[in-house]
C-alpha cells in the first residue's frame, strides 16, 4: 500500500537541504566579498515579492483595491526597492574589484 506523504514534508525537506547548501556555499565565499554577499542576499530574499503580487492581484469583491490587496501593493514597492537597489549596488561594488594590471 502506498502512503500519502503530506506536501509539507516535501517543503520541509527542501528547506533543510537548502540550509545545508547555503552553509557550504557561503563558507566558500571569499571574505573579501562578504559585503556584496550581504547585499545580494538582501536582493534575493526580496523574492518575497511573489507573495506580494499574489496578495495584490487576489480577487476580493469587485474593486481593485481592498484592504488585503493594498497591503500587497505596498509590499510590492518595498520589495522592489530591495530588488533593484540590492542587485544594482552589488553590481556597482563588484565592478570595482579589479586585478593588478600587468606592468610593462
Amino acid at each position, binding site marked *: 500500500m502506498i502512503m500519502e506523504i503530506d506536501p509539507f514534508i516535501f517543503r520541509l525537506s527542501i528547506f533543510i537541504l537548502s540550509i545545508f547548501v547555503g552553509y557550504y556555499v557561503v563558507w*566558500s565565499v571569499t571574505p573579501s566579498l562578504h559585503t556584496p554577499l550581504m547585499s*545580494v542576499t538582501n536582493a534575493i530574499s526580496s523574492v518575497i515579492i511573489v507573495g506580494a503580487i499574489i496578495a*495584490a492581484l487576489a480577487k476580493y469583491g469587485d474593486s481593485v483595491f481592498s484592504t488585503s490587496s493594498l497591503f500587497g501593493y505596498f509590499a510590492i514597492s518595498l520589495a522592489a526597492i530591495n530588488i533593484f537597489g540590492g542587485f544594482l549596488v552589488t553590481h556597482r561594488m563588484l565592478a570595482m574589484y579589479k586585478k593588478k594590471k600587468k606592468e610593462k
Partner: protein
Amino acid sequence: MSANLSAVFYLISGVLFILALRGLSSPETSRQGNLFGIIGMVIAISVTFLSVGNFSTGFLYVLIFLIIGGAIGSFIAFKIPMTAMPELVAGFHSLVGLAAVLVAVSAFINPEAFNLGTPGNIKLASLIEMSIGAAVGAITFSGSIIAFLKLQGIMSGAPITFRGQHLLNALILISIVVLTYLLCASQSSSLFWILIGVSFLIGFLLIIPIGGADMPVVISMLNSYSGWAAAGIGFTLENTALIITGALVGSSGAILSYIMCKGMNRSFFNVILGGFGATEQSTSNKDKEQRPVKSGNADDAAFLMKNASSVIIVPGYGMAVAQAQHALREMVDTLKKNDIKVSYAIHPVAGRMPGHMNVLLAEANVPYDEVFELEEINNDFANADVAFVIGANDVTNPVAKTDPQSPIYGMPVLDVEKCKSVLFVKRSLSPGYAGIDNDLFYKENTLMLFADAKKMTEDITKNL
C-alpha cells in the same frame, strides 16, 4: 499556467539564487553570479504573473508600484557612498522584514487568495507558518531600524541598558509563543495584531542594548533573520523559490555572524545580551598613561618607507572616516614606482560590516590581489620592513596575545609589532572602540604619526 509548471520554474529560480551566491567565491565569477541572481528574480516574478493570470487593471497597478519601488531602489543604489554600505544594508533588511509582515497580514485577511482556507478558518499549519513569518519579519523590521539609526549616527551608538532588561525580553519572547498558540486555537484577528505589535517591540528591545562596535554582528544577524522570515512566508505560500532563498539567506547571515563574533573574540550570546563597552571602560587605563612614545612627522615616515623593501598597510575604519583611501592608494603607487613591495592586511572586523574594508579599497582602485586576510598575511609581518597602520587600533593590539586580564584577550590580531618598524597614524593616544590602551604605541620600533590620516598620507607622498 499549471501549478506544477510554475513550481518547476520557482525551483529553477531557487537554483539560480544558489548559483548567485556560488559566484561570490571569487571576484572573477562574482559578476556572473549577480547576473544569475537577476535572472532568477525575473523568472520568479514573471511566473507569478502568469500563474495568477489576472491581467486586469490590477496588473497595471502592480507594475506601477513595482516601478515606483524600482526607481527608488535604483536611485539609492547609484547615490550611496561606499562608506555608508552598513546603513544601506540595515535599511534594506528592514524593508524585507516589513514586506514579510505585510504579506502575512494580507494572507491572514484574505486566505482564499493563497488557497489557505477561509477567514476565521485558516488551515492550522498555514496559520503557524504565517505567525512565524510575521513575527520574525516584525523583529527584523524594528531591529534593523534601530541598527540603521545607530549606524547613521542619528541614535547614539552607546548601549542602552536598564534593570530587568533580560527578564523583560524573555517574558516578551515567551508571550510570542503563547500568542501564537492562542491564535491557532481561536483564529482571532486581534490576537494576530497583538502578535505583530509585540514582535515589533521585541525587535526594538533586542537591539538597543547592543553597542556601536558590535554592529557588524548585528547586521549579519538581522541578515539571517530576514532570511528566516522569508522562509516562513515561503511555507505559507507553498513557494519553493522563497523557501530555498530563505534558507540560503538565513544560513548565510548566521555564518557571517559567527565569523564576526570570532573576529572580535566575543561569544554570540555575549553580543546578543549586549551592554559591551558600557562597563569595562575604566579598568585598565590609569597606570599606563605616562609611558613615553616616539612621535615623528611625514618626513621621517617617508624616509623609513623609502629605505624599505616591503611595506604592509593595515587599514581600519578610521581611514574611511578620514576619506584617506584615495590618498593612501597614491602613496602606495609612489612606493611601487620605487620598487617597494606593498600589500594590505585586512582584519575580519576592519570595517563596520563583513568585508567592508575590501569594498572601500576596491573603490580606491586597489587591486584585490594585493589585499590579504589576516591568516594569509600574518606570518609576513616578521619579514616586512615597515607596517603602516592607518585608522586601525584594537586589531593590532598585542595585549590580545599577552594579557589574559584584557577584555580583548584571545581576539585574533595582526602581528604588526613583528615588523622592523611600525608607523602608526592616529590623531591622539586615545583608546579605540574596546576602550583599552594599545601597547603597540609604546614599543621601541613604533613611530607615532599624530595627524589626520588623509593629510598625513598626502604629506608622506610629497616627501617620497
